[in-house]
């Protein structure tokens, strides 16, 4: 399931909804990304996430499908926020359920790695010195690449 939203989310509610009543789940992996207060030694007061409505949902759905094709997953959840966030705010939640722990944890790692470079979001950081678009990092490309390329 894909959710692209401005509002915060409740991790406990979201994770419980994936497992309630499904007694075939042996493991649930999850990752939560949060806004840090420091970037390049500068104090950040806000991070504004811009995205490409329409394409974002399609890309996230495609990334979900890719994860499902690679691991035996029972459920996949991606929640990605946009708009103005502050340090400590949650940005993104990815969670997967599987009969097996390796599938759950590896697929979470895959999802967040691919989101970094393949989900159409752009981050604008606000600090004392002004506004600054966050640059894509080579290390994020490398992290995405280690999973190989899209099957499609």
């Amino acid at each position, binding site marked *: 399931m894909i959710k692209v939203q401005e509002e915060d989310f409740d991790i406990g509610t979201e994770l419980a909804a994936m497992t309630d009543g499904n007694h075939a789940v042996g493991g649930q992996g999850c990752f939560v*990304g949060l806004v840090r207060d420091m970037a390049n030694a500068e104090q950040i007061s806000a991070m504004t996430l811009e995205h*490409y409505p329409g*394409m974002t949902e399609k890309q996230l759905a495609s990334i979900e499908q890719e994860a499902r094709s690679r691991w035996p997953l029972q459920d996949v959840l991606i929640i990605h926020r946009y708009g103005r966030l502050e340090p400590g705010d949650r940005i993104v939640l990815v969670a997967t359920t599987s009969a097996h722990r390796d599938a759950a944890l590896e697929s979470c790692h895959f999802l967040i790695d691919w989101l*970094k470079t393949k989900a*159409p*979001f752009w*981050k604008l950081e606000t600090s004392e010195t002004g506004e600054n678009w*966050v640059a*894509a990092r080579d290390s994020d490309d490398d992290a995405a690449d280690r999973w190989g390329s899209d099957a499609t």
Partner: protein
Amino acid sequence: MQLLYFGWVKTRIGKGRESLDPPAEIADVRTLVEWLKQRGDGYQSALEDLTAIRVAVNQEMTDLDAPITVGDEVALFPPMTGG
């Protein structure tokens, strides 16, 4: 043709979206970008380094060689920073 800009491409061009009618001979993204660069300093600055530009046509990732036609939605933006 619907044109969309995101990230610093948007900031430099000064708008996030516009509707344009490029000349009929513009048949791929690369020639569209060259045409846009002649529209002013903002476009020139935004589209100067083509290695930093990512392209989506009709909400699908593609590249500068992608063909385009009149009714397409073409988006130009920097590398994505999701997650």
